[in-house]
């Protein structure tokens, strides 16, 4: 089962659970997140972050990547990204990759 009460940190490796779908809505020409009885409208930055949430990358790696791409202060990006992911996790739309025991 998907774990709850996730606390997002730089070491988290978040991913979208099976029932949360990020998709481009051709009709309205916007990105949407489809979740149980909800349609969310992520902004451009959120879409970019969510596309990086593959359960392999850590939040730290995502932040590095974004800080480099936008030539922005790493601290500011880390704060924003973690806050956004935590918000999604609190709503149940984000899960964490389990530690591999293999």
């Amino acid at each position: 089962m998907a774990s709850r009460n996730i606390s997002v940190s730089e070491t988290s490796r978040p991913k979208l659970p099976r029932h949360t779908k990020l998709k481009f809505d051709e009709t309205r020409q916007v990105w949407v997140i489809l979740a149980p009885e909800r349609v969310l409208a992520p902004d451009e930055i959120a879409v970019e972050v969510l596309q990086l949430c593959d359960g392999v990358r850590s939040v730290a790696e995502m932040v590095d990547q974004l800080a480099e791409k936008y030539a922005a202060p790493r601290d500011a990006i880390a704060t924003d990204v973690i806050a956004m992911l935590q918000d999604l996790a609190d709503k149940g739309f984000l899960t964490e990759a389990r530690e591999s025991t293999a």
Partner: protein
Amino acid sequence: MSDTLAGNKTTTAGTTDGLAVLEQTRSAAETYGIPLAVLLEITHRCPLQCPYCSNPVELDRGSTELTTEEWKKVLSELAELGVLQVHFSGGEPTARKDIVELVQHATDVGLYSNLITSAVLLTKDKLSALADAGLSHVQISFQGNEPMVADRVAGLKDAHRKKLEVARWTRELDMPLTVNAVMHRQNLHQLSDIIQMAVDLDADRLEVANVQYYGWALKNRAALMPTIEQIEETSRIVEEAQVRLKGTLAIDYVVPDYYALRPKKCMGGWGRQFFNISPAGKVLPCHAAESITGLEFESVRSNHSIAWIWQNSEAFNRYRGTGWMPEPCKSCEFREDDFGGCRCQAFALTGDAGNTDPACALSPRHEEIFKQAEQESAGTQNRFLYRNFAGGTLETEAPQEKINGA
């Protein structure tokens, strides 16, 4: 990030409400925001007999239901129009033998599927097949937190135990679970226990939905109407739990509009962001809309497309926007906040769907109706009229001393 797209974002400017004509070069979604989600009431058949059922009093018989191929065509058409989610509902949607095939088709055409179910017909194999077909979310109705109250309200023995079992399977299959609890005078004393039950079931979300009084529920109003004290206690319990369970269980709360001063923005406004399709294929602005006599609803079996019906049919345009409004709505500063409340309730309580919803304190009928509800809530009439195809069956005896035992 906005919580939902369902507001104004996907509709065109409000000034053209009801007047928008589908231009040939544009899709319906561009000219008149096609809903993001559509409710599919694929059957009215149901093993439960809840006295507040939201289905119309005149139920569609099994023989009138759309066929598998007709529902598949509907699903494909909805996806093409830009609908993103469907809710398979009923009646009991799993009473249809083709439910897995319909969910699979929804997945194939790119729709996100929710199942709104009483759960009592589901086996573990069937639920697993639904998950494999792409089902993304299961919402199960509960009538109480233990069998005595719950099975009596449902009018079905062993229903509660079965629901608990299916709820656990849902989580075992890693599907998100919503517990839907319809609340009224005879089960509100169980609310705290229902919240704990949802937590114990590892549900993602709990809907605490007070009964809305039209159709079957209106017939049962005297047996269901809560007291104002119960509602105040309910609000207190819900607000406390919402804070305590943040991140564990999301709780949505629907208050009964009889005790409100302002009416609910029913369906987000008639014909603005919602439609549903009845078992027989009628395209409706609200699941209770067929209770309004004198409105003709078009069917997916007609030679009109769903987009055309949404845009142009008389029933959708009759109460769209604000142009139809009489006073006190017409000059009211809140007319675009609540769009005059609920048309079905206005029809049921005043005989004219074009009147202000009496739930609004500005309605000339508000005081009278509120008083009546208050009297009913204090009464001792606890017998249910159970929902069925025969027009309802009165409960054999009222278990007065067993209920209201809080």
